[in-house]
C-alpha cells in the first residue's frame, strides 16, 4: 500500500459511484457470504488494484453500512518518531449486517471539526461484512501537522468510499490533543495521515 502524503483532489462523485457499483458487483458476483453464526466480520472480496483473479466467489449482495450505524472511537494514541499512531475501533451498532471497505480516507480533525490533515483517497480494498455488534480495529498514523493551533480534542475521521459519508471517531477524552503530530517539515509542508485496513 502506498498512500501519498499529500492532499489530493477527490475524484468526481460520478467516478466513485461507478466504483461503488462495481464494488457491489464484486461483493455480489465476485464475493462470498459468511455463514450465519460465524464471525461477525467476514471479508467478502478482494479487488486490489493490482489483483486480477481468474475466478471469483459468489455471494449474496449486502448493503454498505450507514454511517449512523457505525460507532468509531480512538482507543488510544501513542507516539512514534515524528508521528502519532492512533488505535481506532469501529462497531456496527446497527441492527443488520452490512459492509465496509477495509480502507477509507482518513482525516485528522480538531474539536471544531476542522480538517487538520487529510489523507489520500484509498484504492479499492477488501469488503468486510460486519454483523451487528461486530468490531473492527485499525491503526491510523499522522505526521507533520504545521498548521495553526487546533481546538481540542484532536481525533480522526474516515470518509467512506462511494460517497457514503464520514464517520468521526470519538477521542480518548474531551481535551485530548496527543494525536496531533509535530511539525517537522516546516511551515507549508504537507501533513500525512494514513490508515491500515480495518481488521477484525
Amino acid at each position, binding site marked *: 500500500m502506498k498512500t501519498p502524503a499529500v492532499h489530493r483532489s477527490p475524484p468526481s462523485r460520478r467516478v466513485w459511484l461507478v466504483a461503488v457499483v462495481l464494488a457491489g458487483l464484486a461483493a455480489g458476483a465476485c464475493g462470498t457470504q459468511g455463514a450465519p453464526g460465524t464471525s461477525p466480520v467476514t471479508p467478502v472480496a478482494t479487488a486490489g488494484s493490482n489483483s486480477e483473479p481468474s475466478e471469483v466467489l459468489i455471494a449474496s449482495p449486502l448493503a454498505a453500512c450507514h454511517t449512523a450505524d457505525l460507532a468509531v472511537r480512538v482507543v488510544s494514541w501513542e507516539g512514534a518518531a515524528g508521528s502519532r499512531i492512533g488505535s481506532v475501533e469501529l462497531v456496527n451498532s446497527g441492527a443488520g449486517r452490512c459492509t465496509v471497505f477495509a480502507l477509507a480516507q482518513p482525516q485528522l480533525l480538531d474539536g471544531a471539526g476542522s480538517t487538520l490533515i487529510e489523507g489520500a483517497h484509498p*484504492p479499492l480494498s477488501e469488503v468486510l461484512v460486519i454483523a451487528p455488534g461486530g468490531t473492527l480495529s485499525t491503526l491510523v498514523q499522522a505526521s507533520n501537522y504545521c498548521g495553526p493551533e487546533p481546538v481540542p480534542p484532536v481525533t480522526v475521521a474516515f470518509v467512506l468510499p462511494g460517497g457514503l459519508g464520514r464517520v468521526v471517531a470519538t477521542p480518548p477524552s474531551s481535551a485530548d490533543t496527543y494525536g496531533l503530530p509535530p511539525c517537522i517539515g516546516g511551515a507549508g509542508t504537507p501533513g500525512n495521515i494514513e490508515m491500515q485496513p480495518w481488521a477484525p
Partner: protein
Amino acid sequence: MSAIPWRISLRPGLCGALALLLAVAGTPLGAPVTRAASQDLAANCGVTLRMLPSTSSTAVTIVPVGSVITWTSIASGAPWSATCGSLVAGSTWYGISAVNGQDVASLYGVPLVYAASGLFRPVDAPAFIEGVDVSRWQGAIDFFSLQSAGKRFVIAKATEGIGFLDPMYLSNRVGASGAGMAITAYHFARPDLNPTNPQGEADWFVDNLGLVPGMLAPALDLEVPGSLDTAGLQAWVKVWLDRVYERTGIRPMIYVSPSFWKKYLADTTMFADQGYAILWVAHWFVAGPTVPANNWSNRGWTFWQYSNCGSVPGIIGCVDLDRYNGTDLTPVTYGADFAVSASPLTATVPSGSSITYDLSLVRTFFTTPIDLGVTGLPAGATATWSVSPATDSSATLTVSTSLTGAPTPGGTYPLTITAIGGGLTRTATTTLTVTDDLPPVVTAPVYRLVHPSKLTASIPVQAVWSAADTSGISGHGVQRQVGGGPWEELTLPSASSTSVIESFSFGSVYSYAARATDGFGNASDWVPGTSAAVVLAEQTSSSIAYSGAWKSGANVYASGSSLKYATRSNASATYSFTGAGVAWVAYRGPNRGSARVYVDGVYKKTVSLYASTYAAKQIVFAFNWGSSGAHKIKVVAVGTRGHPRIDVDAFIRLSLP
C-alpha cells in the same frame, strides 16, 4: 475462503478489467503542491528530467550522476521508484530551474523541469548509510527485502513512557539483526505523563531494550514537552540520558526536530558538550537538515530522519527514512572493538633473511579501517605490511633483516605491533631473534713505536688491530711469531683489548696476527699483519745529515757510548729512511734544551729535553705511519736560553721487511 459454499468461473479478462478500472477510479492524479525554496542538489545517479512530475511525462534529458540541479519548488506528483544508490520510491518531485548553473529555460525552453526527489543528495555531502525507523505501525516487516534494498540499519521503537512496550519491538529487533542489519531502539519520552520520573522512563526503556554488543546507540525521542518549562525539560532529559548511560555504559543519542529543540530546550548545547554527541535530527522536505545547538556543538548531525513517508521493499505503507552521516557505523556501535594477534609468537631468522607474521584482526562490530605499525625492529631491518590500513580481518607483516648497508645485528628483539582505528589502540607482541652466522671482520695488526720510553736491547712496539661485527665482539686474540718461528698466542689484558705492547729486539723480525669472536661465538680466522723489525741508526749513520754546529761526544750511557750534540740554534739533524715509524733517541738532563721536530718537512712539535736529572737513551719522540714509505725526520735546535744543548744519540726506524 475455504468456507465459501460455491463458486463459478469467469473469463479471466473480466475481473481483471474490472480491477483495472477500479484501480484507475480509486487512484486520482494529485495536483502539484509547490513550496517556494531554492536549493542545490547533486544527482546520485543518472536522472531523467521531465516536463511534468510524472514518469509518463515527456523526458527532456538525462543528466549524469553528479550533476548539480537547482530546485525551486517541491511538487506532489505521480509515484516513482528507482534504484539510485539504493532502491528509492516516492511521489515527490523537484521543480528544477537550473542544471549545473544554467537556466533550464535556456537549456530546454521551459521554465521548470521535474525530477523524482529521491535521486539527489546535498552538494558535496559525504556518503551516507541509509536506514529506516519503525514501530508497530509498519506491522510485519520483510527485513531481507529491506536489506536488499540498501537499508543498513533499523531504529525500532521500543518503549513509551512507563509501561508501554511496542508490541513489534522484539520481532523488529530479531528480524533486523537476522537480516544482517544494524539495529537499535528508541524510547518515546513522555514528560507530560511522568514529569518527575525521567529515571523511571529510563529504567523502563533499559529493562526492555535488550542491549547487546553490536547494537547502535539507543535513542531518546523528544517531541512531547508536557508542561515542563525549559529548565525543567532540560533537567528531565539530563536525568534520562544519564540514567541510561549509567546502566548501559553507552551514551544515548537524541531524536529531535530543530524547531522542538529551539522552542522547548532553548537550543542548548549542554548535552552535546557533555558527551551526548550523537544527534538524530528530524527534518523533512529539506535538502539538508538544520542542526540545532550550534550545529550540535560543531559535531553536526549523525542520523537524519529525512522523510516521513518513504516507500521501501519489505514494508507496507509509509516508513520514516533515515540516513547515517558517514560510511562506517562503528563509532555509534555499542561494544565495537577489535583485537590483534600475531603469529608466530617467536621466530628466529638468520641476519639477512626475512620473516612473515600473520596478523589476525578479530573485529567485534568494528568495521573501521585499522592502521598498522610495528616498533622494536632491529637496526637495518625493514617492515612491510600487506595492507594498512586494514579493512579486513587479516594482514601480514614481513620483517626483512639486512646484511648489507646497515647490517642487522644478531639478537633477540621484542616487536610491538600496534593497531589503531576508531580511537582505539590495540597491540600484540612477538619476539624476533636474529641469528648471526658471520664472523667479525678483523683488520691486520699494524705496529707503532711507543714513546716516551727508553732504548735498551729492545724497544716497546705496539701491535694494534680492530674488529667489527653487527652482533658485537665478545673477545679478541693475538698471536706472535718471531723470526719465522712458531706462532704463539699471547694473553691479552682483557677480552676487549685490541692492542698489545711488545719489546722488539733489534735484529729480530716479528709478526702478529689477530682474530675476534662475536656475540654469537663466530670466530674470525687469524688475520696476520706484515712482518716488522726495529732498526737502530746511530748518530754516526750516513743516513743522518747534520747542518750547523754539531759536536761529537763520548758518553758511556749513550747508545754506542757516543752521541752528537749542538748548542746553537738552527743546528739540525735530518734522518732519511724507509719505514713505517721513526723514533728519536736523545739525552735528557738539566742542561738540555728544546728542539723543533719536522716529519717529512712538516713541523710536528717542539720537544724539550730538559730534565732535573740526567737520563740517557730516552726515546723522546716517535711518529708512526702504519705502512712503510720513504720519510725524513728533522730535529732543529731551538737554542734554549741557559741550556741550549740538544743531542742526537740515535734514530730508530720501524721496518716492514
